[in-house]
């Protein structure tokens, strides 16, 4: 069974600076291998957004939060749903087929306010790194790149606010340094897989 600790452990492997540098150093190589083309990148992003949107739908339904935290997470859910719609439309607009939503299971994430916020925090930081890792694969697709970046920035906002709500340390918690770190598709898959029962793509 998956638990939050596994997820966090998996994500911890995403972030270390040395790994980030190494990944940046081989960025072109992995970007080419990671994605077969723009549609593949967009479907990858769509799968992550499906995961996030469903996560917040279930979490907010569990009624664990109140006040500002409840307002913020309701807003985040709306953002993720808007990302899902935008990505689906974009993929369809390119004449391709959007992937179906993955089957998910968030395990004990909604047992408490603390575990909900902590898992959300982990998801958002993973999302930020996933978009940044995929960005070079959209380099030649300027319109798609701008769209993906506009989602990426909002994920960074979510990540920071979840850090604030979780009363994390400023540096290392709310912020992850002066530069966001990219993550490879494999790393993202590993971190997200505990929650995915079945997915068409990731």
């Amino acid at each position, binding site marked *: 069974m998956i638990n939050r600790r596994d997820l966090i452990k998996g994500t911890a492997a995403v972030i270390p600076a040395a790994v980030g540098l190494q990944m940046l150093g081989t960025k072109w190589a992995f970007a080419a291998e990671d994605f077969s083309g723009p549609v593949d990148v967009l479907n990858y992003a769509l799968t992550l957004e499906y995961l996030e949107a469903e996560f917040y739908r279930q979490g907010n339904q569990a009624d664990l939060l109140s006040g500002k935290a409840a307002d913020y997470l309701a807003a985040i859910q709306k953002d993720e749903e808007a990302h899902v719609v*935008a990505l689906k439309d974009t993929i369809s607009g390119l004449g391709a087929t959007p992937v179906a939503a993955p089957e998910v299971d968030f395990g004990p994430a909604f047992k408490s306010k603390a575990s909900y916020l902590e898992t959300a925090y982990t998801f958002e930081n993973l999302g*930020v790194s996933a978009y940044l890792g995929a960005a070079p694969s959209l380099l030649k697709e300027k319109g798609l790149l701008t769209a993906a970046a506009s989602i990426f*920035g909002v994920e960074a906002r979510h990540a920071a606010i979840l850090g604030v709500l979780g009363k994390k340390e400023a540096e290392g918690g709310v912020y992850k340094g002066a*530069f966001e770190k990219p993550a490879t598709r494999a790393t993202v898959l590993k971190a997200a897989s505990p929650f995915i029962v079945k997915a068409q793509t990731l």
Partner: protein
Amino acid sequence: MNSENLPSTPLATDPAAQVFGAKPVMTFGDEGQRRKFLRAAAVVGFGSTLVALSQRDKLALADASANDLEILNYALTLEYLEADFYTRGLKGGALKGRALELVTPIREHEQSHVATLTDTVKSLGGKPAAKPKFTYPDGTFDDKDTFLKTASTFEELGVTAYHGQVARIEDGDILAAAASIAGVESRHAAVIADLIDGNPFPSSFEKNKSMKAVLKAAGTFIKS
């Protein structure tokens, strides 16, 4: 998702830009400069371009660099403004407790962005934009509210500035670097909004502004 980001006026011919002391950009003069860039890029973590550069058409690279250097200098000017703003604001002593904790790293980030952008421009064979002299309305740093509301304006402007350039950047490594900074600016914007009881999530998609629009807005704070 608007498309206000295109087109934008080149710094060299934009009167608003000249206020910032923008200098004409250069391209790689020789292989040595390129090598220097590769070393510096490795240090700052922008990656590695050895393989990428060697696989690319040299002429195309030179063109890309002229364009991208202009964008880097534009970003540098905005980061100078932010770094200066937070340095003065934190010196003013209006913040304490959690607000102070959350804003202190922002200054460090902006300083780090200045240093990295400066190094990158130099390494690419360009001349980094000079640091302008800044001016702020009286009382900006006297109290927490005024300081943080002004900070919010800067951060939101910075976010739109980076997003306005995403489609214009031609080099993959420079794009990755700019994006990695943009994400951090988004974090700042959200945190500052929360501190002033504003909205950390004003839109599901980051907005963007052209270079011209951003320089006009920032120009208010530039003395020379």
